């Protein structure tokens, strides 16, 4: 069943967490409601894409959902998305191509499959991996953006870390 954002927001945190559990979305037990809702909507969107791609048999194919569900940890739904978008113009049907984005916070950084994700989602997924502070500002390609910004394949994302005070 497809939910709207409002319908999800009307649910209790316990209900939302149970939905995540049922869908195999992990790492949400201590997350804020808006982050859980974003994760559910993103999962729903990926599901829709998978169905559409399967129906049309176009190069925009999606990895079998069952594989993604088996992946452990908070990265599972991103791993799913990682294999879902075919961005090579020369690619053939069935090819898979990974698009990763450089994400950093302070000294910690890495390339992650977060294209088409909002800043808010990425913050939720990577808060532990990159040690992101509670309410960080986000900078994409050197400019500040808000939480609703959707990342595209050529972006570079930085969560701002406060400067060291002592010297």
């Amino acid at each position, binding site marked *: 069943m497809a939910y709207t954002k409002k319908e999800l927001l009307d649910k209790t945190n316990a209900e939302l967490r149970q939905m995540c559990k049922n869908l195999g979305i992990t790492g949400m037990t201590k997350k804020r409601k808006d982050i859980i809702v974003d994760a559910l909507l993103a999962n729903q969107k990926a599901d829709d894409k998978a169905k559409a791609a399967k129906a049309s048999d176009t190069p925009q194919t999606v990895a079998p959902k069952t594989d993604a569900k088996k992946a452990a940890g908070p990265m599972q739904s991103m791993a799913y998305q990682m294999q879902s978008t075919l961005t090579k113009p020369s690619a053939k049907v069935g090819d898979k191509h990974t698009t990763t984005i450089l994400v950093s916070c302070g*000294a910690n950084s890495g390339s992650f499959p977060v294209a088409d994700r909002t800043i808010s989602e990425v913050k939720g997924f990577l808060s532990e991996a990159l040690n992101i502070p509670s309410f960080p500002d986000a900078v994409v390609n050197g400019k500040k953006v808000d939480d609703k910004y959707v990342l595209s394949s050529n972006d570079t994302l930085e969560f701002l870390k406060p400067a060291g*005070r002592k*010297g």
Partner: protein
Amino acid sequence: MSKEVKVIGLGGIGSILINKLVRFVNHFSQSGSALNWDITLIDGDDFEVKNKERQEFLFMKNKATSKMEELNALVSESIKYAVPEYITNDNVAEAVREGDMIFLCVDNHRTRKIISEHARSLDNVIIISGGNDYTDGNVQIFIRENGKSLTPSLTDYHPEIQDPPDRLPTEMSCEELANSDPQLYFANLTAATIMCWMAYKVATTPLNEVEFCESYFDIVSMAVNSVKRQPRS
């Protein structure tokens, strides 16, 4: 071309940095470079025994004066002036001038803000600012060339410096000054080292080709990450 280099703050980071920087400047001058740097040291604080684990001084006196005497004996009279004062709104215009290259190694965000805001009013200035917490920290570089900011100021992407929660050393009591947070020598050393990298970069690269404006380090995760950001108008 003569350039005035000023090291502001000679605590954990500054006292390590100047030992390396003075040799680099000396080497650069002797290698036939067109760049000729004069060095000035600025700090209102005295060296105390309790800081000997982190700070590199030979004499128990004002840090700027002590370091000038020490290094001029070792490295051929490289340091021209020692100014035993803290930076405040009243003296910042005298301390930071057109054409200066400033190495900012202070231990509070309020001084960083004063210097960054003053630097915005200058046409040509370079500020390299280092800071650390216990095991991590960062180094920023703010470049103004011909009246234009080529990199963000120290406050552009750091609200904690824009609205600093701390106070200037001149506003603090002796007790407050004595009760400083513990620091790790290696964190000071890493910040000083990255400041040296930035010094090399600006000494050898056209300023409009300096891409990175800030480097973060984390000793625990053994990582250094440099970022590019656009200056805010």
